[in-house]
């Protein structure tokens, strides 16, 4: 790979031990994957935040970097943590878990990373532009930024994203190059997508089928950003889809080459099959919405549904701290809490220790959460639309 004089000096230790070590990591990755040079990144999102995910070795790795004075050079946000960073006691998160989680947050903060903890950085103040090079590392956020915004990121691992933040650069390969953003399969959607969960079911089915291909969707007549967020998240979880195009809806769809692609048709039968596959439980002990983190529009529909009602079961709506602030101000939080529900910020059901909190069956409207909960959190899953889940909890 071509390195500038300045970059060579970094490898000789001119900017200190930490920058040298982190730069060496991304130069090695760039060499392996055939990058021609380093390119500057506009922003970073770092995964590997929950103590449940990274455990003691990961925590010590971050604390060591922080102690050696590591600082990020660009706007850097975090993936969800393992708990609500403000209301963890009230929500009954275990105390020893909380202590370790707070050590991790302290290390990140001292590196100048914004303590946001969300899988929807684009809704919380980290919004890349079309064609901007970024280094993000949560799979649904990667999918949304590549596909819906048209920014350019590879599927970064936690440490390689952190290295990009500390160096302000990433190697130029993979999805940073236009030729690698062309669709490799066409998905013809012949099913009606009516409910929120239909997009998750479609994404789950397609991801399983196509693994890491780049799909070009036709037949999706309309979808708002919440529905696209659900679709992309499910495809990234059941497969490894990091980029998709939707005819008429996403910004690169008109620009890419889409002739003579292999085509898969999706009818109501395949969508129903996905619902059946994802439903492994009968009665949920808890309903958790907001995977990926709920937008303000999604929170307001929950509030509308719960206004003046009383829940028989716990309901969590997971979101970013920024969306929660707006929900507080609009009175949505108050409505949801009066009904017996909670808005939980900074975390989500997949990375929090819900299996240690006494829950065995979780109701979700997310194809991504339904995919991960049985393995990561030992949960049975009831997968349905938000309306159905909330009606059953009243």
């Amino acid at each position, binding site marked *: 790979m071509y390195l500038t004089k300045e970059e060579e000096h970094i490898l000789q230790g001119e900017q200190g031990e930490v920058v040298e070590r982190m730069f060496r990591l991304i130069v090695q990755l760039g060499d*392996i994957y055939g990058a021609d040079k380093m390119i500057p990144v506009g922003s970073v999102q770092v995964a*590997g935040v929950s103590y449940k*995910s990274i455990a003691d070795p990961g925590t010590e*790795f971050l604390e060591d970097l922080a102690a050696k004075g590591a600082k990020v050079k660009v706007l850097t946000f975090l993936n969800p943590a393992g708990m609500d960073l403000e209301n963890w006691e009230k929500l009954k998160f275990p105390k020893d878990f909380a202590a370790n989680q707070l050590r991790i947050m302290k290390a990140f903060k001292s590196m100048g990373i914004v303590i946001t903890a969300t899988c929807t950085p684009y809704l919380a103040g980290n919004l890349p532009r079309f064609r901007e090079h970024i280094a993000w590392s949560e799979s649904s956020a990667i999918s949304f930024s590549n596909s819906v915004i048209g920014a350019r990121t590879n599927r970064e691992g936690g440490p390689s994203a952190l290295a990009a933040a500390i160096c302000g650069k990433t190697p130029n390969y993979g999805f940073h190059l236009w030729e690698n953003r062309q669709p490799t399969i066409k998905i013809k959607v012949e099913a009606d997508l009516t409910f929120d969960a239909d997009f998750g079911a479609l994404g789950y089915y397609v991801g399983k089928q196509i693994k890491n291909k780049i799909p070009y969707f036709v037949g999706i007549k309309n979808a708002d950003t919440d529905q696209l967020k659900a679709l992309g998240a499910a495809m990234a979880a059941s497969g490894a889809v990091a980029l998709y195009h939707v005819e008429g809806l996403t910004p690169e769809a008109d620009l890419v080459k889409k002739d003579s692609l292999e085509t898969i048709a999706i009818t109501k039968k395949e969508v129903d099959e996905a619902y059946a596959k994802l439903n492994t439980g009968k009665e949920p002990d808890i309903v958790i919405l907001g995977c990926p983190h709920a937008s303000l529009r999604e929170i307001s529909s929950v509030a509308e549904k719960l206004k003046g009602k009383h829940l028989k079961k716990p309901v969590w709506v997971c979101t970013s701290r920024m969306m929660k602030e707006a929900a507080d101000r609009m009175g949505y939080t108050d409505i949801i809490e009066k009904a017996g529900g909670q808005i939980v910020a900074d975390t989500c059901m997949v990375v929090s220790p819900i299996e240690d909190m006494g829950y065995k069956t979780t109701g979700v409207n997310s194809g991504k959460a339904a995919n991960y909960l049985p393995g990561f959190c030992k949960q049975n899953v009831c997968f349905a639309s938000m309306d159905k889940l909330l009606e059953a909890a009243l």
Partner: protein
Amino acid sequence: MMKGRTISPGKVKGVALVSKEPIGFYGGINIKTGIVIEKGHPLEGKCVKDKILVFPCGKGSTVGSYVIYGLQKNGAAPKGIINKETETIVATGVILAAIPCVDKIDIDQIKDGDTVVLNADNATVEVAK
């Protein structure tokens, strides 16, 4: 002698533990013991510690890099890794943990229990006869 691509340098000799299926380190391997915990995985119940771990490619969560690093810190890591195709998550993990790793190897030539010499400095793999 097979020649591949260096992912992370170093030279080791050890016994091969071979999986025909991809490995997801996060949620797939116990970070303290090195025992494979993924339900239904061909290596379920086996321990990767001190083995030359051979598998086609990584899969799953981007947090897997930290699990590889953690295995090394806990003394439960494989001695070396041989892949058909190493993706970024495994590559990041082995570089950080300084575990020798080579990819672009025809892993069908390596049998479970074979003694293997992995020279990641030259990107070569040799099965001892």
